[in-house]
């Protein structure tokens, strides 16, 4: 029982730290009429709808509505929604003393849309299917801690030795203690699958399969449309308000806005033009109960990665501090339109375990802050020349010009290089091609845990790899060790350790200049009610909850 309590504490801590989400939203949900069709628009097609393959943010909105998982984010806003909660698992798992073995008991009553019962094997099959090399899934990196998964990935075994089904129990043994394991299980990669899908090993993905969540995929026409229908066998506690969720694909943001205004579309998931938000807020108000404009903070950050492998920022923390004092976060955010995000000077976003509000750097630029920046920069400019990378699309070129101007204020002449986004981050993650001093980057958490932020983005052990996400090439042994230690902690200690790391890094040796924690901006048609947004689970309103007025 003591071990189970540890898991509870870990989850409670995640929830407590999700309070940032609460203020904006807790009262937005109400239950409206059941039935009808909710029309959603996406700007581009999803990658796959196969749960073991899909990895686009847009696809996960659909997976959230169709999947059932051992652990899931509840259909709630704020702190309550930020705690991974047992869904098909009958309570929290029993965790062994060494923290490596998790035993889940399966709750009876869950069924797939084809009538098949959800069992422990449904989840074991999901893990083995995910690991199968023939699936070529992008979810494989999340399996690195499951014992025996590597043998499956390497084609040496057909099932992971660490995953065992014992009646209605599922036992998963890990190679090392991983307190973020329960959060990982909330990803659709680990959703339960029926025996038919389990036997379909196809890297092209399966478009027609039974689901055990509130909805199932009734049809998909690539590049055109996706249709979700209510799972007739669903007996879980989650809402399934509309009869049909119809997803239309391909319109640009202008048309999505027009269609939402005219009522042809209920939720423009692909977004609307950034310049329109201010007018919409003025017209419809912000975050009203079931209101048409809803804004919530995402677990997501936009930042300047300062390349510590190049001479300008190598062992030069004062210059990194100077950059943090000079960047105009307000102007940067303004380029993205009204309510683009919240300015920040720290690494962890609000709502994430370990987030503690810190005011190390200014979020508003004044002559005084420029003066402080210049004090830090003085004597540390080296050659004063920098290469600044940015994407060549959307507002990124404008943001790059702004950063260029900001850097000029402290004596750095930045030469802007605009790249296709795909090129920018693949080149930045390769030490042989990372020829920049500053790059404008963006990261959204795969799952709500600080490991997926600090360790993934700043652990120095990865910087020599040909592909990694540490775009600051930040590699300090002391911090590497602290990150590793924090990742092994649970509960409050985990949160405290990550909060301390965030603070210490930014105060003493900033790897980045954090800029903006992005918001999820949602606009809905006038015929929609039952709006629940849980950014721990996904961006945008939960589709299974949306209903017609």
């Amino acid at each position, binding site marked *: 029982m003591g071990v189970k309590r540890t898991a509870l504490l870990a989850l409670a801590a995640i929830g407590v730290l999700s309070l940032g989400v609460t203020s904006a939203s807790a009262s937005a949900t109400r239950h409206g009429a059941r039935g009808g069709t909710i029309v959603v628009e996406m700007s581009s097609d999803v990658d796959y709808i196969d749960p073991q393959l899909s*990895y686009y943010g847009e696809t996960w909105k659909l997976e959230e509505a169709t999947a059932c998982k051992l652990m899931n984010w509840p259909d709630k806003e704020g702190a309550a929604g930020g705690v991974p909660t047992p869904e098909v698992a009958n309570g929290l798992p029993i965790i062994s003393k060494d923290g490596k073995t998790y035993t889940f008991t399966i709750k009876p009553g869950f069924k797939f849309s084809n009538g098949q019962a959800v069992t422990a094997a449904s989840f074991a099959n999901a893990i083995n299917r995910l690991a199968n090399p023939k699936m070529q899934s992008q979810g494989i990196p999340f399996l690195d801690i499951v014992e025996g998964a590597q043998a499956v990935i390497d084609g040496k075994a057909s099932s992971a030795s660490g995953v065992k089904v014992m009646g209605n129990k599922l036992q998963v043994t890990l190679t090392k203690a991983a307190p973020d394991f329960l959060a990982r299980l909330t990803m659709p990669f680990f959703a339960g699958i029926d025996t038919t899908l389990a036997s379909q090993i196809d*890297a092209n993905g399966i478009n027609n399969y039974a689901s055990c969540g509130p909805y199932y995929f*009734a049809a998909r026409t690539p590049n055109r*449309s996706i249709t979700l229908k209510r799972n007739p066998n669903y007996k879980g506690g989650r809402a399934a308000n509309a009869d049909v969720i119809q997803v*239309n694909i391909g319109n640009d943001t202008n*048309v999505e806005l027009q269609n939402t205004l005219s009522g042809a579309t209920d939720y423009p998931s692909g977004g609307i033009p950034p310049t329109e938000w201010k007018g919409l807020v003025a017209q419809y108000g912000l975050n009203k109960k079931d209101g048409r404009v809803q804004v919530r903070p995402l677990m997501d950050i936009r930042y300047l990665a300062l390349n510590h492998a190049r001479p300008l920022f190598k062992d030069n923390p004062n210059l990194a501090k100077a950059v943090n004092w000079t960047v105009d976060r307000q102007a940067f955010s303004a380029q993205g339109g009204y309510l683009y995000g919240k300015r920040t000077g720290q690494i962890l976003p609000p709502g994430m375990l370990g987030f503690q509000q810190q005011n190390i750097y200014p979020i508003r630029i004044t002559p005084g802050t420029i003066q402080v920046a210049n004090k830090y920069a003085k004597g540390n400019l080296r050659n004063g020349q920098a290469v600044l990378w940015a994407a060549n699309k959307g507002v990124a070129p404008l943001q790059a010009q702004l950063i260029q101007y900001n850097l000029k204020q402290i004596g750095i002449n930045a030469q802007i290089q605009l790249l296709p986004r795909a*090129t920018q981050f*693949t080149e930045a993650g390769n030490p042989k091609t990372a020829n920049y001093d500053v790059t404008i980057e963006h990261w959204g958490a795969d799952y709500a845990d600080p490991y997926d932020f600090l360790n*993934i983005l700043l652990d120095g052990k990865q910087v020599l790899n040909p592909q990694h996400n540490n775009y600051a090439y930040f590699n300090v042994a002391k911090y590497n060790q602290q990150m590793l230690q924090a990742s092994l902690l649970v509960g409050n200690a985990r949160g405290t350790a990550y909060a301390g790391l965030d603070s210490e890094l930014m105060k003493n040796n900033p790897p980045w200049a954090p800029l903006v924690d992005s918001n999820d901006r949602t606009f809905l048609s006038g015929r929609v009610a039952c709006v629940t947004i849980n950014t721990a689970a996904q961006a945008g309103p939960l589709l299974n909850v949306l209903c017609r007025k």
Partner: protein
Amino acid sequence: MSTYIIKRFLWAIFLIVCVTMITYVLFFLVPADPARLAAGKSATPADVARVSKQLGLDKPVYVQYGLFLKRLILEQSLGRSYVNRRTVNQMVFEAAPVTAGLVIGGAILWMLIALPVGILSALRPRSLVDRSAMIFVLVGISAPVIWVGLLLQYFVGFRLGWLPNSGYCNVFNPPVGSSCGGPWDWFTHMILPWTTFAILFAAAYARMVRANVMDTLGEDYVRTARAKGAPEHSVVRHHVLRNALLPVVTMLGLDIGVALGGAIFTEAIFNLPGLGRLTVTSVESLDLPTVQGVVVFATFAIIIISFTVDILYAYIDPRIRLA
């Protein structure tokens, strides 16, 4: 004639090899790793290496190109998308009819505008009709397609609500869940795209028709026909248009061939799932097999149409056949 056809055929094969090779080389000059994209943002180097091997990206470029040609010739396969692993054949053959519908409908529309405007302008030079037509030509050629499309979409589609502002409806077998389908829905959804697509060409063709007709009107055989007392409408129809429109037919064939490669702007504005939109999304995601598939298809389209026009021309005009 048969020697001529064989020569053209060999030239067509040579062109396909050149174009696909250039696409391949250009793609690999882009400094980005498709395997990294396909492996996902959290992939380790081992994951990327595995994906690279699975996609065949670990082989030298010339080997990859050789395999591509082998697949294309022996299996008529364009491969599979790196992004969603669908077969490129399927993606191209789903998109091609949409683009064909846009281009052929657009071509009919632009000819319906260009012919009367061009002919009337030529028959009454410097008249009010001619000057108005030339203003239309100037505006049509100068206005960017994307601007025209957005204006039509906003005013005619959204504000006035006369026509659908975007989307595509299948003539037959609409997909499950689709809100539209059938010939009428297809037609109404295509009116704005056709108009957008046709305006530039209509303007250019009107100017070309006007110039050709005016040139032909000055020919000796036209003067002879008039001197023989032939009525004006007969002179225009039998002597002027028959000769003046010959180059227009050639241009039409070539323009349709080029446009089949993807009417990118029009498809993007009106959300038509055609080859143009497929190209844009594939380029953005570094999806080489799909880009290559569209390039091969477009090359085929251009070559086949040019080939047909060449042969027709050789048939019509012996000077070309003998050259």
